[in-house]
């Protein structure tokens, strides 16, 4: 593992998703900027970056799933996935950059026009008021809890790198990625032994190992190091970032209690050895496997998107299109992680959709919710057909 390969991993797992996701997060009248409006400057920026990261990664997983499954079922080579996905990522990032530049220019022009209309003094006063309010809201106890959160996060990330966790399922998932990268063939070798076999349709519909192999290919880090060290070290803070977005929303007026929410979440992960089947344990021990990603990232993401949908319904406002796009991307990413994703992602959406009919006496949300679930229904059908 060289410094260059580590930097390339940071590029592919942080910089690229943040850039791709900025197309959603910087939308002026979207749910993200609206949700972050009442917060202090630093926290607002952090919120927008986290949303960009989350939505960008979902978008990239979504694209990867579509490209990879299509190529695998066509029995093409792994190298084609690398080419097509790299190209698509470049296009998505390019579009995101152009869109954001145009938005910034527009905003700049509008601000200049406002300055001419209202005078600069008002603006200066407004900024001063915001700063004053930030200072008033500063809470010493919360400051301490934020430090506790940061310490536990750093500790868990360091332990992720310093401790090795033996999980027998890696003999499948990591070895499959190793085989793909080396042989350029996909799902026709038994990963446990390396012996040629018939096409494994079931696993080919959840090509999370192909994403792992892709990361290894573009960064030059060996698959095994990517899976056990680099990917978990980045996905761990990323997942806590998603939990922070969730906490920020569900806490509502109590947003300043977010660090308590996060520390409790960290403790639940830290003390998760009471069962081997819970998402918290999967999260900390084997985030490199698709099933752990679905448990710790995709399902909380679906709960978050459902919360946003319910929030819009309560406010009797039209749901931001980006929320529906997020739901669609979560479902597609769920299928990338696990074939079970097709069932497990749809279930809470279907339950909440039915409940909303009774709670709000309207059925308008059913159509976008069904569209959001389409990837799962499609991949479930493919799974049943190829069983």
């Amino acid at each position, binding site marked *: 593992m060289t410094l260059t390969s580590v930097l390339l991993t940071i590029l592919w797992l942080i910089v690229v998703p943040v850039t791709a996701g900025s197309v959603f997060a910087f939308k002026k009248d979207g749910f993200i900027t609206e949700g972050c409006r009442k917060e202090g400057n630093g926290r607002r920026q952090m919120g927008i970056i986290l949303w960009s990261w989350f939505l960008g990664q979902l978008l990239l997983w979504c694209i990867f799933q579509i490209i990879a499954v299509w190529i695998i079922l066509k029995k093409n080579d792994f190298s084609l996935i690398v080419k097509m996905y790299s190209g698509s990522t470049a296009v998505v990032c390019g579009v995101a950059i152009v869109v954001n530049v145009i938005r910034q220019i527009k905003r700049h022009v509008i601000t200049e026009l406002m300055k001419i209309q209202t005078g600069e003094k008002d603006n200066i006063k407004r900024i001063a008021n915001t700063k004053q309010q930030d200072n008033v809201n500063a809470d010493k106890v919360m400051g301490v809890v934020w430090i506790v959160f940061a310490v536990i996060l750093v500790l868990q990330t360091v332990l992720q790198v310093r401790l090795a966790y*033996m999980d027998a399922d890696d003999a499948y998932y990591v070895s499959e990625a190793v085989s793909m990268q080396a042989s350029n063939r996909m799902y026709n070798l038994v990963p*446990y*032994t390396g012996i040629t076999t018939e096409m494994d349709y079931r696993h080919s519909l959840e090509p999370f190992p192909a994403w792992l192999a892709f990361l290894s290919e573009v960064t030059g880090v060996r698959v095994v190091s990517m899976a056990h060290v680099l990917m978990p070290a980045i996905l761990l803070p990323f997942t806590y970032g998603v939990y922070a977005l969730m*906490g920020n929303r569900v806490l509502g007026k109590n947003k300043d209690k977010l660090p*308590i929410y996060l520390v409790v979440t960290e403790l639940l992960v830290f*003390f998760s050895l009471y069962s081997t089947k819970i*998402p918290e344990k999967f999260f900390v021990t084997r985030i490199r496997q698709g099933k752990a990603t679905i448990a710790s990232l995709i*399902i909380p993401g679906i709960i978050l998107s459902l919360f946003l949908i319910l929030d819009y319904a309560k406010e009797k406002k039209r749901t931001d299109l980006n929320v529906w796009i997020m739901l669609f991307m979560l479902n597609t990413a769920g299928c990338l992680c696990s074939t079970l994703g097709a069932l497990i992602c749809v279930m*809470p959406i279907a339950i909440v959709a039915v409940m909303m009919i009774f709670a709000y006496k309207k059925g308008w949300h059913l159509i976008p919710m069904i569209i959001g679930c389409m990837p799962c229904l499609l991949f479930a059908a493919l799974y049943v057909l190829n069983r």
Partner: protein
Amino acid sequence: MWDFVVNHFKEYIGTGLIFIFYLVCVVRMVIVEKRKEYKILFVYMPAVVLVLFFNPLTAKIMKDYADEEIYYRILWLLPVSVTIAYSVADLYGRLKGRVRIVAILLAAGLIAVGGKIVYTDAEYSIAENEYHMPHTVVDICDEIVIPGREIMVAFPTEMLVYVRQYTPLIVMPYGYEELKYIKHFDPLHELITEEETDAEDLFTEASKRGCHYIVLDENKLIIGSADEYGFEEYAHIDGYVIYKNVAADFSL
């Protein structure tokens, strides 16, 4: 079917204390929370998930169409962490003075008592290298691997999980899956794992299976000589001995 469902539930809740804490948080939400969206997402939706989970029909569908071992994963839909974390933060917001500090410390204590530090799991060990696998496996693989071609190697059970994670250039006559999940009987694996093995049986079988090398525990007792059956001692690494099939094709 009922036992199947209950066993999955028991395995999921583990010691059960955290799950009780979660249920208390849900009950608190039922009593305190007035907002419809919170009740839908954190009370009613989980209730329906539990009803579906304990429904034998769901269990039957999962058994027929998916892997029955993963039935417990339906319970991943219970927002346990979110509900507990939200409840603790919300409670802190509702209380005043020192009581609220006591409340969060109590919650943290409950989690610590109800749970167990995940890093004490027996499967954790200090990483020996950047691959997070035993260095012995790395050393053995590096010793025998031939860049540019695959070789067939038989390993002892404890190494099976790691070998192909490290290198795709080693192919194995039997793998972890066959032994662990399919309970497949493999004669060569049987000969390798026995404490005492006849050299003729072991090396003839290895040769028949196309092995270029076999890796054995140094403490294993072999009755007879490897040389007589086309194998020679190639190297000793970290308590393991590697035998090389002298008649095998090693060309690129």
